[in-house]
């Protein structure tokens, strides 16, 4: 984080941008924390967290153009979808499985994002299946440009997944395809060192997933995932490369998992107790706040005001979503086919 100021400047981020990033990080954290409270209150059967990934998510998503670029997030990416335009209420509608949940109308578990109007592509639970979709969207963009003989579509496809998920064959197949045709895809590995209980050394024989990119013919970049500016910068470079038609990049953000895998997990059964203590020292929110204050971009008063505002937003979102109706059981059979729904 030492060179964060420098990169903030070199990345062309204004102070207002840095504050906007901080705010989205805080909002993601607050919404996430509230979800755990609701879970303990018996009001939300399932929570899966972004805590410890906020810097990577918000920083990276900040380099995308909402509504233009295609985004295929995974279940931890609350920070990503908030940055791209989800409202807190929409997030909470998903948590409570309400009919108005934009992801799925309450059909999917919480955090299974998807929102056509934001070009956030519907995701699922099986790990890694979104990565071929991103390659396919990249292929479609490439086809448009090749048929036109020039770049008529400079959108990119941004897709994320955990380091555990990088073991899935489909992730390999997608990266290989993207490498073969220099497709405009940004592969983002949010590496938090665990796949549920399985530590990275049990998952693979390397330190850096980014090392794989060389085997596909494109750059792999390791980034401090607790530094939002570094994540922004790395993503921006990848986006520019992709828009130019130069092909994919694999970004590996080294993140922290500050919570158990999900509300169904108990990480004390497998995680050394001192490890959690140690990583909490690197909490991306605290670090970014400290940096912004050290640089006089954020004052204590401003931070308090921000936190108040966000708390209020989260309260409102929770109340609105809780009051919203559940899906009508009579809708169970709808949308098996699109044709059925549209004619």
């Amino acid at each position, binding site marked *: 984080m030492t060179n964060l100021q420098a990169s903030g400047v070199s990345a062309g981020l204004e102070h207002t941008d840095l504050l906007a990033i901080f705010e989205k990080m805080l909002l993601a954290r607050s919404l996430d924390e509230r979800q755990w409270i609701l879970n303990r209150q018996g009001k939300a059967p399932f929570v899966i967290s972004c805590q410890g990934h906020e810097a990577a998510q918000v920083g990276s998503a900040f380099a995308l153009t909402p509504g233009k670029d*295609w985004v295929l997030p995974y279940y931890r990416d609350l920070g990503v979808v908030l940055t791209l335009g989800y409202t807190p209420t929409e997030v909470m509608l998903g948590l409570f499985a309400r009919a108005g949940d934009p992801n799925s109308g309450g059909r999917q578990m919480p955090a299974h994002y998807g929102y056509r109007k934001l070009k956030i592509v*519907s995701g699922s639970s099986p790990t890694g299946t979104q990565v071929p979709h991103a390659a396919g969207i990249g292929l479609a963009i490439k086809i448009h440009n090749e048929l036109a003989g020039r770049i008529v579509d400079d959108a990119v496809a941004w897709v994320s997944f955990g380091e555990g998920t990088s073991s899935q064959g489909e992730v390999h197949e*997608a990266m290989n395809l993207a490498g073969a045709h220099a497709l405009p895809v940004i592969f983002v590995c949010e590496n938090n060192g665990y796949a549920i209980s399985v530590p990275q050394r049990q998952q693979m024989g390397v330190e850096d997933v980014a090392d794989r990119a060389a085997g596909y013919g494109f750059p792999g970049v390791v980034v401090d995932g607790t530094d939002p500016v570094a994540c922004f910068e790395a993503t921006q470079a990848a986006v520019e490369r992709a828009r130019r038609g130069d092909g994919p990049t694999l970004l590996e953000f080294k993140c922290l998992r500050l919570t158990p895998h999900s509300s169904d997990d108990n990480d004390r059964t497998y995680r050394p107790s001192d490890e959690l203590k140690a990583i909490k020292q690197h909490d991306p929110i605290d670090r970014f706040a400290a940096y912004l204050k050290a640089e006089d971009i954020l004052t204590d008063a401003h931070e308090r005001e921000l936190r108040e505002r966000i708390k209020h937003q989260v309260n409102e979102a929770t109340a609105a979503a809780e009051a919203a109706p559940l899906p009508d059981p009579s809708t169970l059979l709808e949308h098996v086919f699109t044709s059925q729904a549209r004619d």
Partner: protein
Amino acid sequence: MAELSLIEALRAGIDESMAADERVFVFGEDVGKRGGVFRVTEGLQAKYGPWRVIDSPLAEGVIVGACTGAAMSGMRPIAEIQFADFIWPAMNQIVSETARIAYRSNGDWNVPLVIRAPYGGGIHGALYHSQSVEAFFAHVPGLKVVVPATPYDVKGLIKSAIADPDPVMFFEHKKTYRLIKGEVPDGDYSVPIGKADIKREGDDLTVITYGLMLHYALEAAEQLAQTDGLNIEVLDLRTVRPLDTEMIFNSVRKTGKVLIVHEDNLTGGIGGELAALIAEHAFEYLDGPIMRLAGPDVPAMPFAATLEEAFMPSPERIAAKIRELAAY
């Protein structure tokens, strides 16, 4: 009107759809210069260029996965799986993704994707180039599963499949590609997905079948008309999901006796679903047991001619089974 082989009719259908809609592209192994190992896409790359008929890497998971992504983004891909036997690496995509994106997004997204694959045996394809896989996909809500048997139907159905806003599994019996010829109208027409077709009218007994077996069943029926004076109705499903229950039940009501014939292994094949539907909803019209004739329950069709022949249902075996049921 022209007489075309099944593969020519299929190619013509794809060609016309590609000409009419620039969003249509083909993605699969060897589909480009080679025109596919069966030559279904022969000439199409030369006509439409390398970015509309694209050779994929050797990886079925990403063939279907990338086409699913492309379809969500507005394209109309046709994924070719070189042999139906090689569709399994794509099973995760098909079942978990392609088939349920409309449902899971509450209708926000849809996947207009055709997945084509040659299936079936009798061509010395052995254990891994002969399989019938339609029953697996017919068990997946969210998929339509088409198995045409004639040049007319294959062209009409591929056009419907490409135009469909939802995923369609399109299985072509590879032995019919060049063996089966028939009249195909010039120009545009389509055959609706989900409609069966009575390929031979009769009132003694109904044979329900599809694919190559349709032709064997018709052969058996013709023979029995001459030798036994039997008047067999032959119902070609054409689509195995959704099933055309109306036409099926009507035929059963008329004949009272049903033989189901498929090349796929007996246990868990389409025949089970058909028999269950009939045994529940047309029970009172049945004059005899619902019989099935199908491939035996071995993992697949062996290579040696002796064993391959022992596996395949034939016109003779179908005729024998019809006789048995007719005599009930």
